[in-house]
């Protein structure tokens, strides 16, 4: 176990724990966008910055990627940290002016749109945190989406911006997206995501449409469970 201090509170956590997890476990709230429990950490949104003080030196670090150390003193809400966090939010706000999530966070910290950061019009709500790409690779295992280009043109997309042959329409990317950038439309019989329309499967028992057929086929192939068993929705199982 490692002993350290967060916001004046003595805390001990297992070695290798990240500061963010240790703080959350002790009821200390640190705002984040990209730190989702399902996927690995990337430190992309940079909202989780805290100040880590070791001896005489205090530095700003991303708490989601900073492992706890013996004797460090973490400040999550001092003026220095809040200044950095406000700047990050100003930039996020300029990138995604339409995102309600970012607007709410900005309002909480009293951040207004800055005239010096011209607002982007073509980025929609994507903050390029790569959570969707990671969930598709790490959890779903199909890697249907990825980033394309770089710099100002960087965006998340399917290869060649075409219908992905490997996408199973599970919607994990839309679910994990912190800002709601990825659009998924589900009606009774169909689901539309990444420009492709998937046919939904109706439950063999209750007749309710519950999952895309391609997803069930993929799960069946991966786990070896016969497709027939999967054709029953979770409520009827």
């Amino acid at each position, binding site marked *: 176990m490692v002993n350290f201090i967060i916001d004046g509170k003595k805390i001990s956590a297992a070695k290798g724990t990240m500061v963010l997890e240790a703080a959350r476990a002790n009821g200390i709230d640190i705002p984040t966008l990209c730190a989702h429990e399902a996927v690995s950490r990337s430190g992309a949104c940079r909202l989780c910055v805290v100040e880590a003080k070791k001896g005489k030196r205090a530095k700003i670090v991303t708490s989601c990627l900073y492992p706890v150390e013996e004797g460090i003193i973490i400040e999550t809400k001092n003026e220095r940290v809040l200044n950095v966090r406000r700047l990050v939010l100003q930039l996020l706000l300029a990138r995604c002016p339409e995102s309600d999530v970012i607007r709410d966070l900005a309002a909480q910290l009293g951040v207004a749109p800055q005239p010096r950061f011209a607002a982007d019009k073509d980025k929609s709500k994507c903050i390029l945190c790569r959570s969707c*790409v990671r969930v598709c690779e790490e959890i779903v295992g199909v890697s249907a989406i990825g980033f394309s280009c*770089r710099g100002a043109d960087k965006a998340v997309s*399917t*290869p*060649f911006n075409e219908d992905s042959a490997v996408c199973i329409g599970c919607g994990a990317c839309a679910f994990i997206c912190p800002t709601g950038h990825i659009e998924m439309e589900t009606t009774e019989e169909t689901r539309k995501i990444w420009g492709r329309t998937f046919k939904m499967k109706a439950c063999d028992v209750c007749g309710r449409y519950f999952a895309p057929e391609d997803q069930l086929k993929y799960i069946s192939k991966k786990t070896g469970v016969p497709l027939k068993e999967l054709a029953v929705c979770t409520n009827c199982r």
Partner: protein
Amino acid sequence: MKKATTTEAKTKEIVKKHGRDKSGLIAILQDIQEEYNYLPKEALSVVGEQLEVPISRIYEVATFYNTFSLNPRGRYLVEVCAGTACHVQGAFNLKDRLQRDLEIECGQTTKDNMFTLEEVRCLGCCSLAPVVRIGGNIHPYLTQNEIPGILRNYRKQG
């Protein structure tokens, strides 16, 4: 269909040459680009299958680096240097002239598939500014008046 199989065979050969190791992806893509002057979509999917890397990852790499092109390029790549030294020496005038003479915009390819015009940052020979690199050859201290003759020579070479 016949052409398709040859692209596949050629790509497989290139992948094999690099030991089917995914850490050699960039080298493989460079060799494919050497062969075709661009990265054919079909070749990319073969690379993905051979290396067991998702096509989305390969697309990330192929779009990240400027040296890779996903669109067919002409026989000669015309690179106008827009680095500081060349810019000061009026490289933008050379670009205008090339666009006019080739009747294309930057990033496009001529109808006869001879030239692709691109703007690059620095070719590393600032003392020769302004420079244009055509098909790998550096043309130093270039003036607008020399451009038609140079293009004619490349056209003649075929």
